[in-house]
């Protein structure tokens, strides 16, 4: 059996990202001014790039909006 080919890829490290279930939800988030200022760009219709160092502020705003975001990469 031949070993699988190694796929050429480029890494983007330390990315602050919000993924939503659907595009409408992403629109809803972007309509929130306090949150939109911390969004640098929209990678796809449901992937938002967050300004570095502003993840906590985004989380706080999401919670204020009544969302319960799943925070990936921390555990208590």
């Amino acid at each position: 059996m031949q070993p699988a080919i190694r796929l050429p890829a480029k890494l983007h490290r330390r990315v602050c990202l919000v993924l939503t279930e659907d595009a409408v939800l992403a629109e809803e988030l972007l309509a929130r001014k306090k949150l939109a200022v911390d969004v640098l760009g929209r990678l796809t219709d449901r992937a938002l790039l967050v300004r570095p160092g502003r993840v906590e502020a985004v989380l706080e705003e999401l919670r204020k909006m009544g969302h319960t975001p799943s925070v990936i990469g921390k555990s208590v």
Partner: protein
Amino acid sequence: MTVMSPSLRDTWIDRASATLERYAEPLLRGVVTRLVKARMPPPTEELTDRLFATLSNPPVVDRRIRELPEAPRKLLALIGLSHRPDWKVGHLITLLASIGHAEGFGPILHLLQTGLLFPQVAPDAPEITDFEAWLGSAGMLHAKVFALPQVAGRARGEPLGLPDLSQPLSDDAFPSSPVPRFADGLDWPLRLALVWQQVLTMPMRLTQANTLFKRDLGRLQADEVLTTPAADQLAPLPDLGVLAVFWAHATGLLTLKDGELTAAPFPASWGTNLTPTLTELWAGLTALESWDPLIGYDPSEESLSATPSAFFLALLLMSHSAEDQWVTPAAIADWLWEHHPSWSGTIPTAAAAERGHSGIEAFLLGVAYPLQLIEVLPCPDASPLVRLTELGWHLLRGGPAPTPAPAFPQTLLVQPNAEILAYRQGLTPELIGRLSRFAHWKILGPACTLELTADHTYYGLESGLTLAGIIQTLNQHGMKPVPAAVADLLQRWANKRERISVFGSATLVEFQTPADLEAAIARGIVSIRVTDRIGLTDDGREPDFKQLRLIGNRDYEAKPQQCVSVEDDGLTLLIDSALADLLLEAEIVRFADPIPGDPPGLRRFLLTPESLSRAQAEGMSQDDLEAWFSARAGCPLPPAARLFLQGRTLHPWQSTPLLVVQAPSEEMGNGLYQWPATRQWITQRLGPTAFAIAPEQLPQLQAALAEIGVTVTHSEAEHHPDRLITSR
């Protein structure tokens, strides 16, 4: 003897190892020589290994302890009995002074020099050349030292010379039908779990002096659940919430970082057996300084608190009476009053009048009794009598560990209104910790009440629990299965969380083609599809590099670079994949379309009238595009793009039939354009030799030029060097 978990031993060995790295070589050699007592001096590179090898050899450690003078030996025993390896130097000196060794820093320096004690230093601390100098620089009484648990533990049996305070009691003082009271030991674990939960939902900031801000103090003092009296309270205590916060911090349930207390994972000691949990709480209790059983919250920025040493000694005194004998709190207070160097000075005036009896009684009945360290014999018309429990003897005199209480796994009742009744007899530290992660403690009492809420379900899932795990816990410990309505409710709350995922620091993997991304997903390299070429692992961490050939590496926080070149058509944008960042992907699709069919590795986008209209509709102005091209391509917005952007906003362009007059040379053309007689008939100069004129003006131009002998023919084929030619 308490069994120390291997991980805890390793933690302290690691800390000691890091400390030894700060020792100057002569100091380290001196310590190792005194501890190891080798015939041949060990080589420098083996000094640390030889030290740890000796400290890991129990018979040698026992011998070294026996060789110590009385005061250092007792000091090591005190540390062992506290079950807390690290102590402030000032507290150790106080403890020694209380038991008759007012020798100041001497015993501590002796233990440091023999390698049985270590200074607590920061990783970036300067080199230690001399222990006395280190003490001076580290704050003298406030400096901290630690002993390895396996070393201090072996000194626990050393005699401390404390008196037996039990006295034969008269029949009048002794109750006629004695029924000792014995606590279930759950009150403090429950209260600490509750405060852990509160800090989890709202982290608490401390001042620079590690004291509480007024707002948090008020919140803790007013909290109805935290300040609920214990289920079988024998003595009221002030500021229970404050005590719980600092105690939780001392036991590692809360961690302090950058002035903020946050919830840490429950320690491994919070298992199904209560003894390890209570042992850890006992160890943490001897570290509490900001609380007093009579005063309540009592922070002090300068002086050392008498609380840790006084209450530790109170229990040590009880451990020196005969095992089944009762002691009065007053006898303990009297002894402390006479022997403790600072405790009497910290007691409020009213309590000082009775030599601190009420303070010791409050501590023993309010703190030690619920912690299952002592049992209490209530006496009519007199103060109660106290003696150590089996756990107390185990911790303070090395008695056998108590037999774990029988398990009652089915101790929860989940009600249809999403409340949980938790009967205490079946609660274990493990279950308390687990429930605290996803259910809100509402009532602490003989039967506790918790509530399932959307917020706490969310916190539970955030802490790493799964919905299935939560329901399993409730079913496993429930007297009845979780009601269907409650399971639905939990499912709905859990689903809500799945709608938004936030990655704080993810590694995104960009493949060259969508097919590569599909292959990566199929091979499990990544699991989440972000774009048609970019994916990431489900936990956002780095993928398996063995399956990838890295062709680039970008830090999201690095400054964006120029990574676009514009081709000659002014519309095709070529991406330099090595320099491109994620933001470029997000930016460029707003105003350009990817060109399909490019080979792997080549990324091109095309500016089209439609793509630029789309950008304008989304609010992107020409200025925005100018700025983008300047930053990303290092050139202005291409004219073709300007044409697309501005064309529709201009007046209608005109189309007019014109003749082109061709001069034989640029020089002649300049003359034609300069001479007013001919210039007036020229509509526009098209180039060095080409001029546009209206067809009806041709005769006038021909006439003017005829005057100087130049003929203008109107022929498309004929060419003559001294003639001007017009053509359509």
